[in-house]
């Protein structure tokens, strides 16, 4: 185990597609991403004086958008065989 893949998370993984879909973790991260995105768009609309804030927000927003895209793909892979 490393800091990237931890034993704690590996032992807490949902074992079925139903459990995975019901997990609140994905929802929390999605809400966070939507909140950051809305904040970024509002700040961007106020003018160029918010450049530093936008740069700081991007440290969180851009990688978390990628995280959401990957786990949406994984959830689809989990439930597609059921359909």
């Amino acid at each position, binding site marked *: *185990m490393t800091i*990237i893949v931890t034993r*704690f998370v590996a032992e807490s993984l949902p074992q079925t597609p139903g459990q995975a879909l019901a997990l609140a973790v994905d929802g*929390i*991260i999605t809400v966070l991403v939507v909140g950051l995105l809305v904040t970024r768009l509002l700040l961007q609309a106020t003018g160029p004086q918010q450049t530093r804030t936008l740069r*700081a927000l991007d440290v*969180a927003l851009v*990688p978390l958008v990628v*995280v959401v895209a990957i786990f949406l793909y*994984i959830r689809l892979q989990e439930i597609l065989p059921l359909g």
Partner: protein
Amino acid sequence: MADRFPGFVRGASRPATIRAQGFEDRAALLVGTLAAGLLVVAELALLVGGLVPGTFGHAIALLGLIGLGRVRWDHPEGRLCLALAVVPVLRLASIALPAVIIPEYIWYVMIGIPTFLAIAIAARALALRPADLGIRRTPWREVAILAAASAALGLAGFVIGEPEPLPTGVSVTEIVLTSLALVTCGAFLEELLVRGLVQRVAAELLGGRAVIVSAAITGLLYLASLNLRYVVFMVAIAVLLGVVARRTGSIAGPVAGHAVLLWTQLIVWPLVLG
């Protein structure tokens, strides 16, 4: 740049001597304490409460660190907060992305992609070039010595860390792919984040004591291994790698040492000893 960050030398071929500002004012001390508190509480929420409280904790820590970084943008402690913001991004990815239908070596890649992205964006926001993050040449002897020492330490890591045995019937292709994932998205990513980014930015505030910050972050993140002896072992390794990174100004040696350590500990010794 040189005026804002003493010791920062653009285009320097040797590592810049960073003169630490230290916790000269109360604001810096308060921000440093808040940042450390946010990360510790988030990780404890994960370990004590489980995945959902841990996700909440790291989401709050992320927002807090971004906010502190923005408020103290022109100060070393604000820069350190922005660098530390990559830690909750890594943890959120490592909580959300592993899935039983995906092979474990792909977990490293899936978690690695957003984390590399976060490091790149944070480095750009902090005006750090690859050389500032320690991506620069270093004498090969340094790299070879660390790699050789780590090969021996890998056995200790295997005994202390008690890694999961490799699945029966694992193919050579899977072993090669797992090894590549461990080296790139395990060793290189961890060193780039902890020694390259966090320790480099912490040095602007704390000088040589930045090694303590990087070792503390390593220890905090290894708590999720659920093995206290292994945490102590990895913190000791982190101090060694931090000292080497500071002395050489490069993460080449630490990456080589960390890669050999992980590879021997998680692949070689489980194959040899079962």
